[in-house]
C-alpha cells in the first residue's frame, strides 16, 4: 500500500502542477475573458452609444476590450475590498481616477477653493434619504456601501448598465475630444452614467430631470400625500433637464425650449410667465443646482447680465467659468439651492405691490 500512496501523491502533485485553466487564470489578459464568465450587467450594452462621449473604461465591453481590469483585480485586491476593487471602498476606487486632474473632481473641490460645503450627498456617511418617504418624511434605505451606506454606485452605474438617455452636459468643463469632434457645440452629451433606477427607486426613468430625483426623494414630487411640496414638473409632462423654457437673452422674458446645460438663463420663471412657461412648473434642477448667480429678476423682465452663461470650455473664459461645479455632490448653499433666502424666492414670486 505504501507504494500505492506514493504514486497517488505523485499524481496529485502532477495535477496541481498542471492546473486547470481556471486555476491557471491569466490575470494579465483578463479583460478579454471577463464577460465570457460574468456576462454583461443587466441592460449593459456591448455596442457603444455613439452620441455619448467620454466614458473611458465605463461600458462598451466586448471580448475584444480590456476595460475590466482597469477597476477590478482578480488576485491582488486589498483586504476587505468589495467586488475585487483596487481600493478599500467604492468611493476610494472611484477617486482613483476622478482625482481632479482630469477636470472631473467631485468631492473636495469646494474646500480647495476655501469654501465650506453646506449640503452634500454624503456618500459612505449616511443612509438617510431626506423626503424619501411618500409622506415627505425622511427614510432610511440599504445602500451599496459597507453598513448599507450610500455610495457612488447607488446613483451611477460604472458599467453603464441601464443608464438614462444622454442629456446635454450640465457642466461645460471639457474642451477636448467631445468639443472637437462635435464642433457645433461645446456641450457634449452625457448620461453621467446615471442609473435609470437608483438604489431604492421603485421604477426606472429614462430621462434625467425631476422624475429621476424623485426616484429616491419620493416625498418631494408633486402630489405626494401628506406633505405640501413645491410643485415640480415631471417627465410625464414632457419636461426634463434637456427640455425647459430658457430665457432668450439679457433683459428679455421671451423663452424657447432647450437644455439647462450650459446656461443659467431659464433657471427661473419671472412673472409674467412666457408662453413656454405658462401652465408649467419648474423642474428640480431649476432651483437645485450649483450655487451661482442667476441674475436679478423683476416683474416683466430678467437681467441676466450677472449670470454665468457658459459658452466655452472650462478655464478659457473668465466670466463663463464656474469650474468648481460639483452638483449634485456638494454645494456651499443649503439643499443645493442656486441662491439662498429671498433671492431665490423673488425669482418667481412677485411680492404684493412689487
Amino acid at each position, binding site marked *: 500500500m505504501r507504494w500505492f500512496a506514493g504514486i497517488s501523491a505523485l499524481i496529485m502533485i502532477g495535477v496541481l502542477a498542471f492546473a486547470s485553466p481556471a486555476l491557471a487564470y491569466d490575470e494579465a489578459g483578463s479583460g478579454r475573458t471577463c464577460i465570457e464568465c460574468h456576462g454583461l450587467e443587466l441592460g449593459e450594452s456591448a455596442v457603444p452609444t455613439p452620441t455619448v462621449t467620454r466614458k473611458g473604461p465605463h461600458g462598451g465591453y466586448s471580448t475584444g476590450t480590456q476595460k475590466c481590469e482597469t477597476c477590478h483585480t482578480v488576485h491582488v485586491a486589498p483586504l476587505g475590498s468589495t467586488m475585487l476593487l483596487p481600493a478599500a471602498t467604492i468611493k476610494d476606487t472611484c477617486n482613483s481616477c476622478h482625482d481632479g486632474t482630469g477636470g472631473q473632481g467631485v468631492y473636495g473641490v469646494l474646500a480647495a*477653493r476655501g469654501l465650506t460645503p453646506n449640503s452634500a450627498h454624503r456618500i459612505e456617511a449616511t443612509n438617510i434619504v431626506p423626503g424619501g418617504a411618500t409622506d415627505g418624511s425622511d427614510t432610511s434605505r440599504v445602500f451599496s456601501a459597507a453598513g448599507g451606506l450610500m455610495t457612488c454606485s447607488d446613483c451611477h452605474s460604472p458599467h453603464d448598465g441601464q443608464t438614462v438617455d444622454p442629456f446635454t452636459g450640465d457642466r461645460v468643463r471639457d474642451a477636448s475630444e467631445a468639443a472637437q469632434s462635435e464642433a457645433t457645440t461645446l456641450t457634449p452629451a452625457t448620461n453621467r452614467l446615471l442609473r435609470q433606477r437608483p438604489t431604492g427607486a421603485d421604477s426606472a426613468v429614462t430621462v434625467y430631470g425631476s422624475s429621476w430625483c424623485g426616484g429616491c426623494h419620493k416625498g418631494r414630487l408633486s402630489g405626494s400625500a401628506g406633505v405640501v411640496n413645491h410643485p415640480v414638473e415631471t417627465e410625464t409632462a414632457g419636461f426634463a433637464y434637456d427640455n425647459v423654457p430658457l430665457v432668450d437673452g439679457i433683459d428679455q422674458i421671451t423663452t424657447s425650449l432647450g437644455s439647462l446645460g450650459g446656461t443659467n438663463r431659464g433657471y427661473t420663471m419671472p412673472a409674467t410667465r412666457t408662453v413656454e412657461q405658462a401652465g408649467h412648473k419648474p423642474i428640480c434642477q431649476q432651483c437645485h443646482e450649483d450655487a451661482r448667480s442667476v441674475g436679478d429678476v423683476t416683474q416683466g423682465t430678467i437681467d441676466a447680465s450677472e449670470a454665468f452663461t457658459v459658452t466655452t470650455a472650462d478655464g478659457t473664459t473668465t466670466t463663463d467659468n464656474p469650474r468648481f461645479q460639483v452638483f449634485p455632490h456638494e454645494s456651499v448653499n443649503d439643499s443645493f439651492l442656486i441662491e439662498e433666502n429671498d433671492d431665490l424666492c423673488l425669482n418667481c414670486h412677485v411680492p404684493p405691490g412689487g
Partner: protein
Amino acid sequence: MASTRRQLTPRQAFTLIAVVLAVALIALVLYLLFYMAPTGFTELVVDPGEGGLRPIMVISGPGTGENPSFSRPMGAAFGPDGRIYTVDTGNNRVCVFDDNGRFLFEFGGFGVAKPAPGAEASWEEGKLNSPLGIDIDDDGTVYVADFRNDSISVFDAEGAFLRRFPDPATRVGFGASGQDGTGIAVTDVAVRDGKVYATDTYQVVIFTTEGELLGQFGKPGLEEGDLDHPNGIDVDENGVIYVADSNHNRVTAFDPDGEVLWQVGERVTEMAREAEYTFGLPRDVALSEDETLLVVDAFEFDVAEIDETGIIARYGARGVEPGQFNFANSVDVRGSDVVIADKENDRVQVLELIR
C-alpha cells in the same frame, strides 16, 4: 630581576575574548539600528526580482508626526544627492528621505491661494493645495506643481520657500486653464538649463527658473500635437520636450519650439477600447540614462520603456507587492535607479532598472 608580567589563564583569556566579541557585537547592532536601518515606514526590499525593475525599497510615509503615512502620493523625484522627494498629495506636503529611505523632513501644508467668491485665502508662503508633480534642479532647488493654486512653488533643497510663479491671479500669456482664466492648472514640472516646463490642461508653458514666461504651445483637439490633460513632462539636453498626453493615450516629443517630432501611442476611442493599443493612461515620462523614455501607464499598471519607434519593453504588474503598482502616477530616474509614485498603494517605490 624576575619578570612580574602576569600570564592570563586560559579561562581569563577566553572570558576576555568573549567580552570583546560581545562588545563588538553590541556595537554592530547599534550601528545597524541607528545608522543603517531606515526610519519611518520604509521597507528595504531583499527580493532580487527577475530583471526589469528590481525593487530596492518601498516608502509608505515618514512614520512620524501627525500623518505618518502617505495619502495618495502623486509625484516623486530624486535630488542630486540621491534624496527622494515625495509629493504626498492627499496631505498637501512634500516629504524628503535620504538615499537609504530615512525620513529627513517635510514641508508644505494646506493653503488656498485662489479662494472662490465668499471664501478667504489661507495661502501663506510654502503652503500647497493638491500638489502633483515635482522636479529638482541640479543645485537642489525644488519645483512643485501646486495644482489647485494654479502656480508652481519653488523651495530650496531644505524645504524653505523661495518663490512661486506664475501669479495665480494673472492671466498667463494668451491664456491657460487656471481657475477663472488666470494662472495655470499645472500638473507636472520639469526643470533643465534654467528653464521650467509645465503641463497645463491643454498646453505646455515654459518659464525661466525665476518665473518669467518664455512661451507656451499646445491646444485641445485631436490633431497631432494637440493635448488633452497631460500629466507628465521631461526635457532632454537638447531641449526636446516629452509629454505624457494622458487623455490622448500617447506620448509626444516636441522640439524646443513646440513642433511635433514624434508620437508613440494612439488615441483609444472612448467607446471601443480595442484590444490592441499602446497606452491605457500614460501619466508621466522620464528619460533613462541611455536616452530611452520611461512611461508610467496607470491603466496598464506598469512602466513602459519607449523610444520614437515605439515600445521597447514593459516592466511591472498590478499588485501590492514590491515591484507591482496600483495606478502609479509618476516616475523619475537617477542612474539606473527609478522612483515611482505608486498612488493607490499609498507609497513610493525605488527600483533598479535592469536590462
